[in-house]
């Protein structure tokens, strides 16, 4: 479903952290949200997920999200916070099964056949099937990130919001996570991922959204949104650019 925002604004503690953001992201696209620290990236995701009060309007397909209750919204929006938190040593399968929570699958021991299939599918896609019975707290950072991603995919939500899903991962796992998000988008979801890695954004994203001081600076294809003048103005950097296998290579240079 197409995600559309109109004049989305968030004020936290009297400070405007997101100002008048208007976006239009078609379904089936992976959008990277980039910007310096404090640009409002996380606030944008939290506003979209309904975790923080916001002004303006958010549409997913035909439905206006702010008009929905917490549960109805949870079925449409899957949110992956930073850090892949798991407070108790639950087996990885039970963590993934929490993705079915908004659909009524509240007990991982008593999932219906549809819920079980969604969990198994999400674990296959993220390569976590072999981890199913291991306590999530003993997994490595990369494994935990993929389990967290599986939880989000298991929800089958048309809108996926991931906050720095590649942070603290080694390069191979970063690429795996971006590929998984891309695949999820190809399967029909609208996927938004916050990242600090401009290289990953340029290579994997279909759309890039650039934020600075809470305002939308640029949005569009990676080429356009990460153009030299944008990088100079927002990040104060120049980039080395190349191409490999038809995909853009972007390395922050000076």
């Amino acid at each position, binding site marked *: 479903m197409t995600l559309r925002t109109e004049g989305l604004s968030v004020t936290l503690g009297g400070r405007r952290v997101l100002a008048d953001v208007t976006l239009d992201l078609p379904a089936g696209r992976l959008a990277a949200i980039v910007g310096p620290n404090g640009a409002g990236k996380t606030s944008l995701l939290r506003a979209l997920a309904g*975790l923080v009060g916001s002004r303006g309007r958010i549409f997913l397909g035909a439905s206006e999200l702010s008009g929905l209750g917490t549960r109805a919204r949870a079925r449409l929006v899957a*949110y992956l916070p930073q850090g892949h938190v798991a407070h108790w040593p639950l087996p990885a399968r039970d963590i993934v099964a929490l993705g079915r929570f908004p659909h009524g699958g509240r007990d991982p021991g008593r999932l219906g056949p549809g819920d079980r299939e969604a969990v198994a599918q999400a674990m296959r896609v993220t390569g976590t099937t072999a981890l199913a019975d291991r306590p999530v707290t003993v997994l490595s950072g990369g494994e935990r990130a993929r389990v967290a991603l599986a939880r989000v995919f298991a929800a089958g939500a048309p809108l996926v919001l991931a906050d720095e899903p590649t942070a603290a991962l080694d390069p191979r796992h970063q690429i795996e996570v971006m590929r998984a998000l891309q695949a999820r988008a190809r399967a029909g979801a609208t996927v938004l991922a916050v990242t600090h890695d401009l290289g990953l954004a340029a290579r994997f994203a279909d759309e890039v959204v650039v934020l600075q001081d809470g305002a939308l600076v640029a949005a569009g294809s990676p080429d356009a949104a990460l153009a030299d003048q944008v990088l100079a103005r927002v990040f104060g950097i120049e980039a080395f650019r190349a191409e490999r296998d038809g995909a853009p290579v972007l390395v922050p240079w000076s």
Partner: protein
Amino acid sequence: MVRSRRGAGASAALAILAVALAVASLGIGPVRLAPGTVVAALLGQGDEAARLIVREIRLPRAVLSLAIGGILGLSGAALQGLLRNPLAAPSLFGAPQAAAFGAVATLSLGLADALSYALPLAAIAGAFLSVFLLLAVAGREAGLVLLILAGLAISSLAGAATALAMNLAPNPFAALEIAFWLLGSLEDRSFRHVAMALPFILFGGALLLSERASFRALTLGEEAAQSLGVEVGRLRLVVIVGVALGVGASVAVAGTIGFIGLVAPHLVRPLVGSDPARLLVPSGLAGACLLTAADIAVRIIPSTTDIKVGVLTAIIGVPFFLTLIVRERRRLAAGLAA
């Protein structure tokens, strides 16, 4: 699935143990009765004296130990689930102490006698205030250190307020009576006490159990749980009310009995796993077993004066708490650094 079967098996075993302990509890006292005699008396058979002793004198005590132990174990598991923290428990956060203050203030000011409903209501109000204050002071996503410090402050405040109430007591006998009552005991309780406490305990327990799935979602943190459809603000309120009802009513009839809520969840985690939803019922049953066993112990430990059951649970509970701290030391150190 295997895990839920294991949980059900543990619950069944704990329930059988609780019943066995209750029967043993009914047989112990100045007149020792064999389990067969106890069961016969419960069913209205056997001789009249045994029936009277079991049904009128000892049954209220056994019912209260099961109910109070149960709600304390359940409250501990619920608080640990809400706060995602294995060191959370009503007694560490000053809930029983604050409930005791509510009850003591009511008694020493002469607002109510020990058998009126004003007593549990005052105790519930005290417990509610303490848990509410704790969550308000500690805030969202509270770290361990913050929770423990806030809990320490609240329980000290409640202790000081109780001391003040005793200080202002009309006569030394009243103060002494309050002091003994504070130690926590189930001696000489009647069905009047059961009627005062049980409805609140059952309602509080039902509230906590109704949110079991939400505790599981909270494993992912508050924001993720909210994004899954859990209304975290409402959940906090439900837990505050549930814990306050249960702990307040318990304290009103039995004084302060600590550490059951801390110990019970830890005892059952090895049996049923860490899932905070699956922990609630077994933890309540374990609490019921613990308090009933402790209440049997205080009657068979030879001593010149009666040992109060609240003293015994604290004597056993505090070293257990210390062991837990040692076990959680690494996490604690990380929390202190953060």
